[in-house]
């Protein structure tokens, strides 16, 4: 809900001022405010924490992914996340933010007015109640984890150099423009009225679909799917999932940009969707394979978290249960299918983020009932808009990612040698070993 179009049918009257304050889109309210909008310490406190929580998700992802690969690739896999923190951390401040949130150019991209954060200070943006700098930081954390998610599809075989360059270009050419479309003032999807509370399209579909393209272009890992390639350390995976669940409260409830009822709603829906997703996959494994697995449980939780992301501030807790369970079952169905088909989306970056993000984005248009309306609450148009948003994201992300990878393939090559793959990325790409005696 960085910025969404408040629909006419906001249910509780009490919510209106909150929405207005958060968004500054209701003319009257804005007019009523003094010229210099004030900082609210409570909102600021919550957003300081939210930024920190979202940052923590990337080390959480590093653990989640790192535990899933074989021991010889644990550092190579974690390094993809670490490099995102290092590279995109800097990049966002230099020019990423302004491409996404600079003043609108043709509804598709931001201008360079905030280059190197020129003019960004402690005063809030119009309609916000937190320092502008804090908004930059919060958004910057999203820009870090999104490309890091892609690593899951290309794990155990992609050249580190290629991945680093890919992230650099992808954040500038894919992520930042998409963020502008959906959340930037003037962005065309925002103006169209697409609902994406915390990044179902911008974060999950974009990274997921890029991941699918990347893993198809790279090809399968040696040994896949013939040999079992099993996680080397599931406790790390569980820990990573725990940190993701925890950090996701900042991701989703923080997207209210204020410590208010919408944030509380988003926190509750996020939590129950994760729980329902975990429970659904746990039961699926039990029924289908005779045993409930730990990896299934945490995968289901992440699927539930992905699914609720676009919907968090728009749906009721009861709807969030349904949404989480449906997303989780959708993901496990896809994941089973892609494994049978021999598609080596190694850690299911598309299988969970792409599929889950798509389901979530569409279901947002079905279940929306708070701050907006959807199919079930009588707004069929919203569902159509959601489809437009999803399709546009797939198309744009697909084309640009494909071109980027083609260029990099020619320039530096995407894949390590067979020899390097067999020895492992830790030693060959990074000169280190994850574990020593």
């Amino acid at each position, binding site marked *: 809900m960085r910025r969404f179009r408040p629909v006419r049918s906001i249910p509780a009257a009490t919510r209106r001022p909150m929405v207005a304050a958060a968004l500054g889109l209701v003319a009257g309210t804005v007019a009523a405010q003094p010229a210099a909008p004030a900082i609210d310490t409570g909102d600021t406190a919550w957003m300081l924490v939210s930024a920190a929580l979202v940052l923590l998700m990337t080390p959480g992802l590093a653990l989640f992914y790192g535990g899933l690969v074989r021991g010889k690739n644990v550092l190579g896999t974690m390094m993809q996340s670490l490099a995102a923190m290092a590279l995109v951390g800097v990049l966002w401040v230099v020019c990423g933010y302004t491409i996404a949130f600079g003043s609108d150019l043709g509804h598709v991209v931001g201008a360079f007015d905030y280059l190197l954060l020129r003019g960004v200070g402690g005063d809030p943006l119009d309609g916000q109640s937190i320092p502008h700098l804090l908004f930059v930081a919060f958004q910057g954390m999203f820009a870090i984890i999104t490309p890091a998610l892609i690593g899951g599809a290309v794990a155990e075989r992609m050249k580190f150099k290629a991945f680093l360059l890919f992230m650099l270009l992808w954040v500038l050419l894919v992520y930042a423009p998409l963020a502008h479309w959906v959340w930037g003032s003037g962005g065309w999807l925002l103006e169209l009225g697409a609902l994406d509370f915390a990044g179902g399209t911008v974060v999950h579909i974009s990274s997921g679909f890029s991941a699918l393209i990347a893993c198809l272009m790279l090809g399968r890992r040696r040994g896949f799917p013939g040999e*079992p390639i*099993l*996680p080397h350390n599931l406790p790390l995976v569980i820990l990573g999932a725990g940190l993701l669940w925890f950090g996701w409260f900042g991701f989703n409830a923080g997207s209210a940009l204020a410590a208010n009822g919408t944030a509380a709603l988003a926190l509750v829906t996020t939590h129950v969707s994760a729980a329902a997703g975990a429970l659904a996959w746990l039961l*699926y*494994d039990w029924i*289908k*394979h005779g*045993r409930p*697995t730990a*990896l*299934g449980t945490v*995968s289901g939780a992440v699927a539930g978290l992905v699914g609720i992301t676009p919907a968090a501030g728009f749906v009721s807790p009861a709807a969030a249960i349904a949404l989480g369970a449906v997303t989780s079952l959708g993901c*496990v*169905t896809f*994941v*089973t299918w892609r*494994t*049978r088909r021999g598609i080596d989306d190694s850690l*299911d970056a598309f*299988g969970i983020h792409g599929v889950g993000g798509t389901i979530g984005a569409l279901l947002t248009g079905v279940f929306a009932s708070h701050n907006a309306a959807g199919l079930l609450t009588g707004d069929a148009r919203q569902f159509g808009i959601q489809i437009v948003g999803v399709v546009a994201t797939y198309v744009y992300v697909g084309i640009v990612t494909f071109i980027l990878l083609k260029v990099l393939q020619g320039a530096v090559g995407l894949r390590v040698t067979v020899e390097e793959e067999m020895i492992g990325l830790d030693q060959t790409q990074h000169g280190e070993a994850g574990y020593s005696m």
Partner: protein
Amino acid sequence: MKMIRAIIQPHRLEAVRDALTQRGIMGMTVFEARGYGRQRGHTEVYRGAEYQVAFRPKIVADLVVPDNQVDDATDAIVSAAKSGSVGDGKIFIFEVGDAIRIRTGDRDENAL
């Protein structure tokens, strides 16, 4: 002097050690290993797919004993490690040419 190598189920190690100690046979070196034989591997589930994992965890215990203790030791091991189901493991026996205790330089059976 022989080396007895016992490949056993991991949870039988304490019982085997007790059985040996009771018969006065002290000293062994133990490795974690993975084994594969007649025992069917087990199935692991990984995100909606089932994988056959051929190797199962095993403990390998190597103990060097004087020739006259070989039968005693193997009896002890068999009795403590046997459950009757496939996968209980094997014992292999090797000739040892010489032995040295590093601390003292004692050789052969004196080194044990």
